[in-house]
């Protein structure tokens, strides 16, 4: 008796397949590599950055120490207070990534929960949740963020709370629509006929089939959250000096843009590449998680 072809072959999973497809997407891999690089740089910063290039907060008032152009000693130059720009960019990544990840986590937590309830139960609950989302959409995003910060007070913590709260409506919408399409499947009826409870059906049978769009959207949102943090900090509503934040560095550098261009170029470059990386990754994930695309 001959075994069917697939017996003995490695069982393929959704995630296994997705990873294989992602690997072939060059742009997504470049994005992923850059994110990993930035994370490693900033996570290991304590070990090598202050000793080699100087503490990001160390103000050097010695004559000639401020506004140095890039050199071996200070690869990205120094700012008007004599602080090493490279060291500040590396430490700034910490702020940006933390804000990005935590803010999006808050959005996901609220958005996924509300989106799931909305999509699964429908009716009045659905109307209530979706109309509240519409209210959020009705305000200009950045103005709403500024207003929230104005109420909460400008601080590092309040930045990600504000961005997190503002992010949920889109997540809820995306997740709701994905739940709506998944719950029509016969296997959901089958699960109910098996005696599964609402919660079990929701979490075990519907959600795993509905998360793909959320993973994509969440990844891209991290980029968006980083931009928003930079914008808020640039406007003085976000992270407060002297904490190194990319947006804050740009803000400090704007009057010196022509005298000391390195002050704007490097933080700008960091924002651009990091945000782009998240978007490319999200784009790659979208293709990779689409089960209809067969290699």
């Amino acid at each position: 008796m001959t075994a069917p072809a697939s017996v003995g072959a490695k069982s393929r999973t959704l995630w296994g397949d997705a990873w294989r497809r992602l690997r072939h997407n060059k742009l997504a891999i470049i994005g992923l590599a850059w994110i990993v690089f930035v994370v490693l740089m900033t996570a290991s910063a304590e070990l090598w950055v202050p000793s080699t290039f100087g503490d990001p907060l160390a103000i050097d008032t010695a004559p000639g120490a401020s506004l140095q152009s890039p050199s071996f000693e200070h690869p990205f130059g120094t700012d008007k207070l004599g602080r090493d720009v490279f060291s500040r960019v590396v430490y700034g990544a910490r702020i940006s990534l933390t804000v990005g990840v935590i803010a999006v986590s808050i959005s996901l937590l609220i958005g996924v929960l509300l989106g799931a309830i909305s999509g699964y139960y429908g009716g009045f609950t659905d109307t209530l949740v979706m109309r509240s989302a519409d209210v959020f959409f009705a305000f200009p995003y950045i103005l709403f963020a500024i207003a929230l910060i104005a109420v909460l007070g400008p601080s590092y913590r309040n930045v990600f709370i504000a961005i997190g709260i503002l992010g949920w409506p889109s997540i809820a919408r995306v997740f709701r629509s994905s739940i709506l399409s998944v719950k029509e499947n016969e296997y959901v009826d089958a699960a109910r006929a098996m005696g599964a409870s609402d919660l079990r059906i929701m979490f075990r049978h519907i959600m795993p089939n509905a998360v793909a769009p959320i993973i994509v959207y969440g990844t891209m949102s991290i980029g968006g959250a980083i931009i928003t943090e930079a914008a808020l900090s640039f406007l003085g509503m976000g992270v407060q000096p002297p904490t190194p934040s990319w947006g804050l560095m740009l803000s400090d550098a704007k009057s010196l843009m022509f005298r000391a261009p390195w002050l704007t170029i490097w933080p700008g470059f960091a924002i651009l590449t990091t945000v782009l990386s998240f978007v490319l990754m999200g784009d790659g994930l979208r293709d990779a998680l689409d089960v209809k695309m067969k290699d």
Partner: protein
Amino acid sequence: MSELLEVKNLSTHFTTRDGIVKAVDDVSFSLEPGKTLAVVGESGSGKSVTALSIMRLVAEPAGRIVNGQVLFKGDDVLKMNEAQVRELRGDRIAMIFQDPMTSLNPVFRVGRQIGESLILHKGMTRKEAFERAIELLDMVGIPHSRERAKDYPHQFSGGMRQRAMIAMALACDPDILIADEPTTALDVTIQAQILELMIEMQERTGAAIIMITHDLGVVADMADDVMVMYAGRQVEYGRSDDVFHRPLHPYAWGLLDSLPRHDVDEKGVLVPITGQPPSLINVPSGCAFHPRCPYAREVCRADVPALTDIMDGHLSACHFSADSGFHRSVARPAGEVA
């Protein structure tokens, strides 16, 4: 013999924008342990909704069971609370769905999925349930069951998926197995295998089966009793032999005439039932079948015929079934259709 399931005057209605749809209208039947009841009728005749109503799976709030009793071992399922019904579902009454391609969750391994009801109802651990799932896969004739249990549904063929569905339904050793057109989505050769498997499983587990189908061949093969539905109502109900040998209702005659047959030397072509199934919102007055019935008279337009016991437990809802002169010209021997 004591009844395992007794359905009395069941009515399920759906509220739609165009009006109320009486998907199931005053349906009564009973099921004995280990027996098979076939529910036949065209699409939209209320077969599936009847089955869903028994398990209280009609989609609310659009659909509502407005009347009747569903007595399972004497307890009214319609009066149970949500938790009690959940205990029944999958454990005592299990269901096999029509399309095996979409009835298995794509993200779970087959063995895990079969084991789920065991975790839910029998308090097994994941590992125990998985082991039992392997035995069940073996039982429904899936080779290399231990390896296959680790596969995902998309790695199974249609026939194998339906076998897996049957294994899933049988996991808790249910008293009643409801099969909603279990072979419709399958190839003809696979259909026969699946039916055979169901008969075999019934002998082995002693489960009663409610078989929803529009394939009269399936009915002849398996059923002890037959219920014919039209426009949400029962039009004929009785023992399988009676319904095949001596069908009483003109609609049942029509169904039998529209079957291809190879047992008699008839050069005749198939005789379809003329007209369209009625809209369930605007059910024809009187007997719902009268616009398509070649024998319809005035009374058929005016009065709804009651389902009456014509002879010894063979029921029909036709004004003329009781007339001795009103019977089908050529009776077809049962068991030789299809």
